């Protein structure tokens, strides 16, 4: 009358292709949703996927159907006190009572279709603007690496993991424990046999009985299995996170009046990219936000990106502050220091040589990498020239003028290249 098939072992991602097709088709909408989500996210929070909302009308699959109006008769269950001929006011929103069921069915889909992007899909969308090379993408999207380490022994496992010494010890112990009573008896009987005289006729019968008994006990002992399944011990292995060291990331940003929100969003992507890279390589990361106009201030992330102040620009104030913080809190012996600076290039012109000095003499010896982006379509100013000198001197310094998200990645190219090698 039928047979059973266990399909559980078969692949479960039968719908993966269709899901990809869906995402591909609505890429434009999803990308918009992703960049909206970016502005609400902390740069440290790149681990989770994202809930995406798409207007349902964009992805409706139309069919011919009736609109409201005309004459229709609808049957409902659960009459309480209606009698034939009763008249009722039309419920608000038209459609009539009859439309109720229909309206709520469709209503669900009408406003927004929302679903969850996985972390990989989210990062994929995020990376897309940045035009990252594939190698780098996979590098960044990878989760923490684990290592298998020995973790004692277990009672089950695969034959190749059998631990011979442990198993034999176990077998020995079992044989000792189970055989002990027999051996005790045996010793006793042997002592008695020994006590009997060898040739006395009177003892012959007893000697025979004792010998038979000894024989029986010895057979018992011999019959005990040398090794049994429950003696087996297997090497146990457990997953452990790869130990890695810690890093601190300094985010420096100019918040003078000329940095508008669009530029700040671009800067945010720049910081996120560095953060993701660090996250990939270090177990523990701290982020320090320093914003500056004429004076620098250490702030939290919210304030860093979203509060506005105006004023002139003295970049060296931020560099000085970074140096102080680094010296004070993050000794290079135990911290890897990275820094990312975003600015529109505007600086008080006598300050630029000072910045160069700060960088080459104090900061660059401390940091592993210093990335600078200048977010401006305009011509360079004095800061850029000063930094060009720094770049010539220090290999771990990278700079770039950017006008769109795609320009960000080249700043990090060396950094990623070094890691991939």
């Amino acid at each position, binding site marked *: *009358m039928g047979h*059973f098939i266990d399909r559980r072992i078969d692949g479960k991602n039968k719908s993966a292709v269709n*899901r990809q097709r869906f995402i591909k088709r609505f890429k434009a909408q999803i990308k918009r949703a992703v960049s909206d989500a970016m502005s609400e996210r902390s740069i440290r929070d790149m681990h989770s996927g994202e809930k995406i909302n798409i207007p349902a009308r964009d992805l409706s699959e139309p069919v011919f159907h009736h609109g409201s109006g005309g004459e229709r008769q609808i049957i409902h269950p659960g009459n309480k006190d209606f009698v034939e001929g009763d008249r009722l006011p*039309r419920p608000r929103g038209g459609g009539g009572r009859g439309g109720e069921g229909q309206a709520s069915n469709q209503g669900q889909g009408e406003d927004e279709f929302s679903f969850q992007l996985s972390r990989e899909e989210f990062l994929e969308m995020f990376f897309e603007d940045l035009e990252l090379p594939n190698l780098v993408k996979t590098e960044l999207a990878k989760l923490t690496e684990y290592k298998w380490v020995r973790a004692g022994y277990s009672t089950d496992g695969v034959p190749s993991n059998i631990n011979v010494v442990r198993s034999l010890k176990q077998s020995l112990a079992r044989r000792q424990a189970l055989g002990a009573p027999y051996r005790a008896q045996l010793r006793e009987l042997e002592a008695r046999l020994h006590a009997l005289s060898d040739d006395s006729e009177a003892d012959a019968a007893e000697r025979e009985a004792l010998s038979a008994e000894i024989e029986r006990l010895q057979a018992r002992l011999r019959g005990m299995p040398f090794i049994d399944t429950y003696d087996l011990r297997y090497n146990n292995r457990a997953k452990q996170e790869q130990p890695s060291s810690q890093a601190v990331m300094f985010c420096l940003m100019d918040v003078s009046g000329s940095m508008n929100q669009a530029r700040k969003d671009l800067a945010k992507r720049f910081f996120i990219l560095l953060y993701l890279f660090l996250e990939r390589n270090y177990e523990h990361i701290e982020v320090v936000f320093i914003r500056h106009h004429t004076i620098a201030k250490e702030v939290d992330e919210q304030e860093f990106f979203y509060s506005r102040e105006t004023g002139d620009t003295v970049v060296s104030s931020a560099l000085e502050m970074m140096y102080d913080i680094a010296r004070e809190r993050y000794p290079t012996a135990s911290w890897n220091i990275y820094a990312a600076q975003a600015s529109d290039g505007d600086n008080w012109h006598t300050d630029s040589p000072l910045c160069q000095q700060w960088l080459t003499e104090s900061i660059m010896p401390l940091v592993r990498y210093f990335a600078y982006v200048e977010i401006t379509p305009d011509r360079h100013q004095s800061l850029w020239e000063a930094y060009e000198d720094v770049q010539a001197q220090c290999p771990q310094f990278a700079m770039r003028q950017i006008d769109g998200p795609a320009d960000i990645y080249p700043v990090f190219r060396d950094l990623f290249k070094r890691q991939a090698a």
Partner: protein
Amino acid sequence: MKRLVISESSDWTFPLLERYNQELGRIAAQYPLDIYPNQIEIITAEQMMDAYSAVGMPLGYHHWSYGKRFVATEQNYRRGQMGLAYEVVINSNPCIAYLMEENTLTMQALVIAHACYGHNSFFKGNYLFRTWTSADAIIDYLLFAKNYITECEQRYGQETVELFLDSCHALMNYGVDRYKRPAPLSATAERLRQQEREAYLQTQINDLWRTIPVQGHTADQTPETRFPAEPQENILYFIEKNAPLLEPWQREVVRIVRKLGQYFYPQRQTQVMNEGWATFWHYTLLNQMYDEGLLSDGFMIEFLQSHTNVIAQPDFDSPYYSGINPYALGFAMMSDIRRICEHPDQEDRYWFPDIAGQDWVKVLDFAMRNFKDESFIAQYLSPKVMRQFKLFAVLDDDQQRELAISAIHDERGYRRLRQALADQYNLGSQEPNIQIYSVDHRGDRSLTLVHTRYNRKPLAANAQEMLKHLYRLWGFSVRLETLLEDGRREPVAAIEH
């Protein structure tokens, strides 16, 4: 009796499932239920979501809309807004049923009874399924369709094929011959015929659009001949055969979608019957097992709780109300037919003189074989069930300021109520009646469709959207008109080439 109990445990194992299946099969054979052989597959929750989003096709071609369904299902399931169906069953021979591994033993037994004996026998017996689907061939055909579409994607590009499929899907419900018996499906024959058909069709179409004037006729002498001679209800079929610009592969894709529409056509018309029948039989079979002492009390309590949930019918003013529950109505009607046969009262003898007191197995079997929801309700909905559900009819007429209660479950209302409910399940009146009316084959090749209005119900606002899809298939101007009650034709939407 206690010693006969199959199992007290709630964890299932394959030997236990076999055992339940055997017992159910034995009991089902006593009635007898005529079934296809069963192929019961155990799957995980994730696989169930896959099965779900593939709208009941064990292997479908790839399309974003299935991805959308999967994403939505997954989302709801994760949020806990929705439990997964306990089972998915496929109308094929052998009949494939999916059981979810998370189910308890009781649920598995319920599902086996419901799907593998209930739905299975319905698929095999009901006239709609017998006429419109061929269970032997469907799996092969789906495989053929999947491979064909993949091949098209490789040859013509994924996006081209996907957009084309969108348009076909939009018209899927209009790809069915409602009155003609369709040709049976067969994958091998399909493959063999396909090439032949491609070449042949192309010549046919070219002939229709031939511009060389026929000798002996001049344009003004020819009587006005309309093409097609009669309105065509099967829009996709008409497109497949007559659309001037389609490539052969596109015609084949239209055909594939049309065949799938046809495969699902019976399901859309037999929800109440199909679910009612399956629910009735899982209830009957498991109760008999209990009577034979094979099931423990604990099993029965768990079973009854699930069963009660399945057939719950919230009232119209309940926040959980979302229309009439087909399980509830179907089960109530099936059980009621049995009651009328076994214990008829005065009312039943008046309403159902020909079945009152008859053998219930035969009567129920006849009903299952020869009806669809609409006719089943019109024939068998008894006053008792109407009273049990406290049914009432609301008349919503946009020319009246208020709604009217047009019938309730009383002597005056029974017949009207029954007719109205039957009509509610009539696809013919639920879906707009749209047919291909004419093609201007001497002029601009424009296609005109006519929507025949029913009870003054207008088309929804997406008609223009729909015409875009039709336009993609036809390739020239497409117009849609509504035929009003007074015989006038009124334009609704149009796309000009």
